[in-house]
């Protein structure tokens, strides 16, 4: 069953065609990597999937609903309810503790629940770091908090933008292991990356070049 379906989507900035008639889909529970050099339309694709931008033309179906014509306010609601975001720069609120950062996500979604937030931290192995400020956490730890934050509202889709771009190998592996665990639990994952190793961890890789889908690679070595 398709969770996300992109049909003939173009995005044009002035003279630049960032996306040129792209079509792709992601099934529910699938783990997909989107790869491509810079300028390939990766970021634009990410913004559109993440409900932070609208295509110039084409349809974006999320959970069967076309979101390509929605207003900014409706997109915010969809993003809040259905999508968990993970960023390359982690992005934590620097004056809030780890657990508070997770609760911010709950706050905008529904109700803050400190216990649930602590459980999420437990899950990424940082229960004892709950009261630490971001400045007291390592990069890897911050990204793990961000994974916990992305999960906290049980989103349909986790969208990760270069999640390991700022991490060393050890932390990269920890994060990828977390993704594997999420995948086993049935979470849909879209990881935007230019790192082939990260892409290879996914079931399928979609390669973008010059705003078009250049090719798709099925990872035959993928282990459930």
């Amino acid at each position, binding site marked *: 069953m398709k969770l996300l379906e992109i049909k003939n989507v173009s995005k044009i900035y002035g003279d630049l065609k960032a996306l040129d008639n792209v079509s792709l889909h992601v099934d529910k529970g699938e783990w997909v990597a989107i790869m491509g050099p810079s300028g390939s339309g990766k970021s634009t694709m990410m913004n559109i999937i993440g409900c932070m931008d609208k295509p110039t033309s084409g349809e974006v179906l999320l959970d069967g609903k076309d979101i390509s014509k929605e207003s900014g306010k409706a997109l*915010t609601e969809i993003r809040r309810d259905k999508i968990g975001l993970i960023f390359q720069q982690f992005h934590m609120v620097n004056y809030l503790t780890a657990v508070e950062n997770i609760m911010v996500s709950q*706050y905008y979604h529904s109700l803050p629940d400190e216990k649930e937030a602590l459980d999420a931290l437990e899950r990424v192995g940082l229960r004892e770091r709950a009261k630490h400020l971001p400045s007291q956490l390592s990069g890897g730890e911050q990204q793990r908090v961000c994974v916990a934050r992305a999960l906290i509202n049980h989103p349909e889709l986790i969208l990760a933008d270069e999640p390991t771009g700022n991490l060393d190998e050890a932390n990269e592996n920890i994060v990828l292991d977390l993704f594997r665990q999420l995948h086993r639990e049935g979470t849909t994952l879209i990881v935007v990356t230019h790192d082939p190793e990260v892409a290879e961890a996914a079931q399928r890789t979609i390669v973008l070049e010059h705003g078009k889908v250049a090719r798709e690679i099925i990872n035959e070595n993928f282990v459930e």
Partner: protein
Amino acid sequence: MSKRKMFLRMITASLLRRRSRMLIALLSIAVGAAILSGLVTIYYDVPRQMSAQFRNYGANMLLLPAGESSMTRESAENALQSLPADALIGATPYRYVRMDMVSRQLSFTTAGTDFEQVMKTSPYFHIEGSLPENDREVLLGKAVADQLGMRVGRSMELTWQAGAQTAKAAADSASAAGQTSGEDTAADQAAEQDRQPGATLTGSAEGWQNALIYVTVTLDDESKIKTIDVDASLQTEEFGGRTATDEAFLTQFIGKSLPLTLNEAGIDALSGATVSSGAVVRAINEARAVQAGSAPVESKRTFTVTGILDTGGEEEDYIFMSLKDLEDMTGEPGRLDVMELSVQAASTEDLQKIADDINAGATAVTARLVKRVTRSETTVLGKLQSLVYLVTVVVLLLTMISVSTTMMAVVTERRREIGLRKALGASDNSIRTEFLGEGLFLGLLGGLLGGLLGFVFAQVISVNVFGSPITLQPLLLPATIAVSMIIAAVSCLLPIRSAVAVDPALVLKGE
């Protein structure tokens, strides 16, 4: 956990954990609030303070006789019964009569008053010497003292005549009679005619530097000099002045017949005061009989000058004595021409109301405001208050600009955080509420801090400028906090607009 609790947790964390930037905004508000509350405190306290200040410029209300006649002291004091107990600062009675200084052929307006009250209604009186404390003491206006050559500690004789004619007028008519004859010899003849046995003669002549010397002589049964009194007050004390005090010089006149010639018949000049000695002789030769006057009541008293009054005003032309002395001399006790009042009131309207109350209750007296004082009070207060008003508005604007700039910097500094919050699903309203919340919280803290500082600020100003502490306005602190919160909120409007405009996608671009 409720949303509200999380909201407060986020806001306090933002303010407490991001101290340096927020401290600047907090300080801006606190300083603004301090100046604001301080000025408002002074604004409300100034009328009270200034009213006390203005009491230094003299009486602000007069009690006058209703109708033509003078009033009685009793009726004036009865009228004051209706005044609020603590409003009356001072009440000074005045009775004015003309009194003569016969030896100088001058007359002066003489005021009988209560010296204990004088300084309360006329704090601006500047006195060389001291106020009279006993009977038979006078305070001279500076102009009077200069004219008479009087100094503190000297004595002078004042005469009161019930008749309208004064010694001055009598002397004028006498000299006019002398002039009609047209010749000096006529004056000499007139003087000669006055030298009757037992007569009292007075005369004056110019001594050193044209300053007058006054001489009074009494004659015995044979028209020879029995007593002599020289008044050389206008002369230099150690030279011409000695003609009034040197015993040997004065006793040589006793028993002599008039006219006299200096340096003959045993009349010798005082060494070092030859000119003045000559003047004494001439004054005796030209001396005329004192006009007895037709007045039925005449009383004479010798007073000691205890002080000389310097005000720059008309008071300098007066002689002041105690009401008791004046009444003893005139034989008219209990009569007043005016009662000067110094009344404490918050405004001219209040003062007018007090005057109206007095007028409603009393028939023999009327109360009137001294417009010169009350008007200038109103004008000065109005100007001060509009100045405070202006400064307040400027301070409010400056605070707003400062807070706004700081908040703008805060928003710029936190663009990524705002983007993140939006990416996490914050609506525009959430962003607005959060920044407004922070602004209001800053306003609350700054207002509280500033309100307290402002009271100290107002207190310092009040003590230094007005010399008295300020009364605390209990509503001022909550009002200051409310105003600070409003200012903070208004200051946040522009920064909030730019916060709402932040694009959530910026967090994705790996900035």
